[in-house]
């Protein structure tokens, strides 16, 4: 019997979905419906296509089988040897299995499995009518859709799970299979039974644009028969179901309108988000042009743009010189066919925008009557974190930290360090301005603008302006060299100091991200900090190869400086790599008496892990350490840049404090050139053995190379002597890693020959130690570059 295929068309008509959800729902709906159809064994010759517009979730399958495929399955029973007794009679196991399957023992088959021969029952169940199971598929799909925030709306589904929360209330359902309605119903809870509340039943109708659908009456239902018919009728009813159609129309109209006023769209970062969002705010986009009085152009561009983009979803327009003009573009949800309507909307939009700009100007004028320095007092009342004090406290920490980073870590002049300190001291002052109170997204930026207005030099105001950036992995990119100008070094110092203070401080205060929960955004801060270190030369022109420890140490000291004894203990525990710390050790580090240390550890036992050390003392370690967290972030950042996971591990094997992210990045840039060469692979494969053997050399033993006489060991020693100078130099200077890896690879064959020809564990202690010592030197020389044992080719690992 040949299978017939028919078209499925589903439309969930709902109240306006949030624009930011729409791309995600579109993908989910396709994914979930496909999975549910497969699960129900309903074949489709064409893929599930989905479309989402604010008031509708649409799915269609052009060719969906009209019957489920037959279910064929083999149920395995007892092993054959347990199924029949010595006389060949079926045992209870065989009889029980057959009974359970509803067949005779004689109907059972035998199958071969890796564990032997088993009894089995082949079953075949004819597939049912697709129409009769589609309701179940739809119910399951609806339940599957995950919204960022679902709402309860007194709805139920008859799938045994009761109440049915959804993204927004569903107001109609279109469900056609082969042009015929498939029965389906969303019920309503008993408590909501009232005359205006009814179940939502599937039908064959849709509704057009809320105001411009249908012939004069958008409330009239539109009867449809197929997807093509549906799409066509909706387009006539002023609804573009395809996001790409809406987006293309938005883009085209924006360009046209901007041209009409001899301008173009302002190239603002924020607009990419606006571009992504706007097509999902409307079912039929049309763009209108508005104009505001030129006097407002005296406001800073940042304020103008934020008011337009953030608050009103309007696109700013720039003139031929790239300066903001007094025009803006608004995307409306209208047919765009009536110039009078367009002019009316533009005029009203102008009034809304002007009201906001007038407020902004009031803040702008008022804020500038007080210097940022005079606002620091108000920061006292702004809490940063209950255990880390106010924003005033934070500014003071960051100021000191930024000065040290600029001077000691980045090696800048005292003038630059002073600029960094000044910028850091003022960088949070804008939190106390009216403008940032009104436009929180301008924090930092506004501080920079006000600093400029009060005559701070570029090295100060630009450092403030950009100090929040970069944040996270991709979004919110760091400022460009051009944008930073004189402030490159001071910006880096302030941005690093602010982020290090936040990450270190919040960890110490017991706030750590877990799983997807990171309410304070610690991950983004940490990534921002590491990104600056990774790209320092490109961002600032500075060549400093800063290790993570160079940042963390002063930040920790800053926090441990407080009278908070626990934070001292905390950082003492964090400083130690792998091993924990004994109470006595903590006393040495912190000067806190042992009894008090024990009390503190007891008080914070949820954060501390206790263990028995090898030598019998009791050790303490942090359960979750900032260093582990940061190492994981660093590796994540590098992998996000496309570097091989194994290579990343190889160049980040040191304790985190010692890792220089910039070196790691530069090593990774050249490493792929070598990993496939046979010399390098030889080295990588043998390196674990080198490391294991080197460990056999007792601590503190001395050894003398001159006892080495075997040709293979002499060759290795000489090879190492020849090669290591290039490697050492690269590690020392942070340049020439390509040559260094080339030299390292060449050591590979000599190590191979050594292992083939030489018996390391010789009876002669002097000889043995010399050989072990040679191994240790190989280990040390290579490890400075990378733990190449991480890069063992996959086939041999």
């Amino acid at each position, binding site marked *: 019997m040949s299978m017939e295929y028919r078209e499925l068309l589903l439309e969930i008509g709902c*109240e*306006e979905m*949030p*624009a*930011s959800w729409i791309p995600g729902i579109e993908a989910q709906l396709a994914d979930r419906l496909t999975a549910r159809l497969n699960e129900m064994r309903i074949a489709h010759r064409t893929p599930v296509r989905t479309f989402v517009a604010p008031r509708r979730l649409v799915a269609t399958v052009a060719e969906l089988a009209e019957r489920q495929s037959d279910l064929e399955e083999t149920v395995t029973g007892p092993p054959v040897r347990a199924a029949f007794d010595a006389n060949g009679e079926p045992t209870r196991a065989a009889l029980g299995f057959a009974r359970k399957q509803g067949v005779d023992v004689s109907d059972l088959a035998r199958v071969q499995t890796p564990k032997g021969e088993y009894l089995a029952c082949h079953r075949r169940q004819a597939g049912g009518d697709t129409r009769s199971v589609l309701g179940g598929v739809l119910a399951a799909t609806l339940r599957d859709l995950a919204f960022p*925030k679902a*709402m*309860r*709306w*007194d709805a139920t589904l008859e799938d045994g799970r009761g109440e049915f929360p959804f993204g*927004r*209330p569903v*107001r109609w359902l279109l469900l056609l299979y082969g042009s015929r309605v498939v029965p389906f119903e969303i019920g309503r*809870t008993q*408590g*909501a039974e*009232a*005359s*205006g*509340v*009814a179940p939502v039943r599937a039908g064959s109708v849709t509704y057009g644009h*809320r*105001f*411009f659908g249908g012939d004069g009456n958008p*409330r009239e239902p539109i009867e449809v028969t197929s997807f093509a018919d549906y799409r066509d009728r909706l387009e006539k009813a002023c609804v573009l179901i395809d996001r790409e159609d809406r987006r293309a129309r938005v883009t085209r109209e924006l360009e046209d309108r901007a041209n009409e006023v001899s301008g173009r769209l302002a190239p603002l970062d924020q607009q990419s988000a606006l571009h992504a969002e706007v097509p999902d*705010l*409307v079912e039929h986009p049309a763009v209108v042009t508005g104009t505001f009085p030129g006097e407002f152009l005296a406001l800073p561009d940042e304020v103008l743009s934020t008011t337009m983009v953030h608050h*009103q979803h*309007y696109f700013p327009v720039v003139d031929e010189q790239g300066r903001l003009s007094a025009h803006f573009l*608004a995307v*409306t*949800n*209208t047919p765009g066919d009536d110039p009078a*309507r367009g002019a*009316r*909307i533009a005029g*009203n*939009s102008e*009034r*809304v*925008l*002007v*009201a906001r700009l*007038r*407020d902004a100007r*009031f803040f702008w004028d008022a804020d500038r009557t007080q210097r940022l320095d005079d606002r620091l007092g108000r920061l*006292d*009342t*702004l*809490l940063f974190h*209950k255990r880390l004090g*106010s924003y005033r406290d934070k500014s003071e920490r960051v100021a000191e930290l930024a000065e040290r980073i600029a001077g000691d870590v980045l090696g800048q002049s005292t003038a630059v360090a002073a600029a960094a300190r000044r910028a850091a001291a003022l960088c949070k002052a804008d939190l106390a301005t009216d403008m940032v109170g009104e436009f929180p997204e301008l924090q930092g930026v506004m501080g920079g603008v006000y600093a400029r207005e009060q005559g701070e030099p570029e090295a100060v105001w630009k450092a403030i302006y950009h100090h929040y950036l970069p944040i996270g992995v991709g979004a919110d990119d760091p400022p460009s060299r051009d944008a930073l100008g004189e402030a490159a070094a001071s910006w880096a110092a302030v941005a690093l100091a602010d982020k290090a203070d936040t990450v270190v401080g919040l960890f110490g205060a017991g706030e750590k991200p877990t799983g997807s929960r990171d309410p304070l955004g610690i991950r983004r801060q940490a990534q921002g900090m590491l990104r600056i270190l990774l790209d320092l030369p490109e961002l600032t022109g500075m060549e400093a190869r800063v290790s993570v420890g160079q940042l963390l140490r002063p930040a920790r000291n800053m926090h441990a400086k407080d009278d908070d004894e626990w934070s001292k203990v905390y950082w003492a525990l964090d400083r130690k790599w792998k091993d924990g710390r004994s109470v006595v050790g903590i006393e040495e580090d912190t000067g806190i008496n042992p009894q008090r240390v024990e009390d503190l550890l007891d008080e914070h036992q949820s954060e501390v892990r206790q263990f028995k050390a090898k030598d019998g003392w009791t050790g303490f370690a942090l359960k979750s350490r900032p260093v582990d967290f940061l190492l994981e972030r660093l590796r994540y950042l590098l992998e996000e840049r496309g570097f091989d996971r194994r290579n990343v591990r190889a160049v980040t094997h040191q304790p985190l404090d010692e890792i220089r992210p910039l070196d790691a990045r530069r090593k990774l840039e050249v490493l792929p050139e070598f990993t496939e060469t046979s010399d390098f692979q030889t080295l990588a494969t043998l390196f674990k053995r080198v490391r294991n053997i080197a460990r056999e050399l007792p601590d503190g033993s001395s050894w003398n190379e001159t006892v080495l006489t075997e040709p293979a060991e002499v060759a290795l020693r000489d090879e190492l002597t020849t090669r290591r100078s290039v490697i050492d130099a690269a590690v020392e200077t942070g340049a020439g890693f390509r040559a260094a890896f080339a030299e390292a690879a060449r050591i590979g064959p000599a190590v191979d020959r050594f292992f083939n020809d030489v018996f390391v564990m010789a009876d002669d202690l002097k000889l043995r130690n010399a050989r072990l010592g040679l191994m240790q030197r190989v280990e040390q020389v290579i490890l400075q570059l990378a733990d190449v044992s991480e890069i063992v080719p996959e086939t041999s690992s």
Partner: protein
Amino acid sequence: MALQDLILTLSRFWSERGCLLQQPLDVEVGAGTMHPETFLRVIGPRHWNVAYVQPSRRPADGRFGENPNRLFKHHQFQVILKPSPDAAQRLYLDSLEACGIDPTRHDVRFEEDNWESPTLGAWGIGWQVLLDGLEITQFTYFQQAGGMDLAPISVELTYGLERIAMHLQGVDDVYDLDWAPGVSYREVRHREEVEQSKYAFGQVDLPAGEFGRTHRDLFDRYYRLGEQLLASGLTLPALDHCLKCSHTFNLLDASGSIGVTERAAYILRVRKLAVAIAEAHAEWERSQLSDGGAGAAATGGVDG
């Protein structure tokens, strides 16, 4: 359409659709949501449809009568439909048409804007309704009040009366509005805005710090009395005093008398009392039902 005609039109519109017309709460509040006709009525199973005007005081928005858009006190027209009818959006749009706003002549949009009141332990899902980019209404499906899940779900419509009137009258300055034909908003309200703003921002002849001290003291007294009223089973008077606390806190906040840390602590205190009041009310609702009230709709359902 004068402001008072707008109120009359909306009142008639919703009255004709089965809403009981209530009067404003005679206690200072920041929004119509705080009126027991909303905050308490949305709790429990009993159906209820109600509309009222609520003068709403926002001390921090006071601008001494000098800002054309911001007011110490504005007016909300509040509608609660419980349960929310399927045609809630359509009914709302019909009400705009009744006021003379034809959506086909404009760009009317429902843009995501979920509402939350930390002090009331209440939140909902919904939109701000935009008329050519101007926010004219908050449209919310209540999900929780007093920290409790609600069933059935109520829909709350909060119209910004001044804004809608400004649009209808085509004026850019709120004080230029006609309150009644021939009587301006300025005549009715300007002096109040000036004086209330001065008060809200602490421009009072008092020794330094005395303004803050007085209001902290008021807050504490209202709070203690509120707790006492609640403990005595007097839920509605307790709510009055909880709202007085909320308003006193807003005054402290606007006048810069409290820091951010303390601010959070005040909000938490008000919330605690509000949640306890909501719970007491829920308990009372349950006792009513078991006494044979059977949850009959106090007012009829609202048809589309």
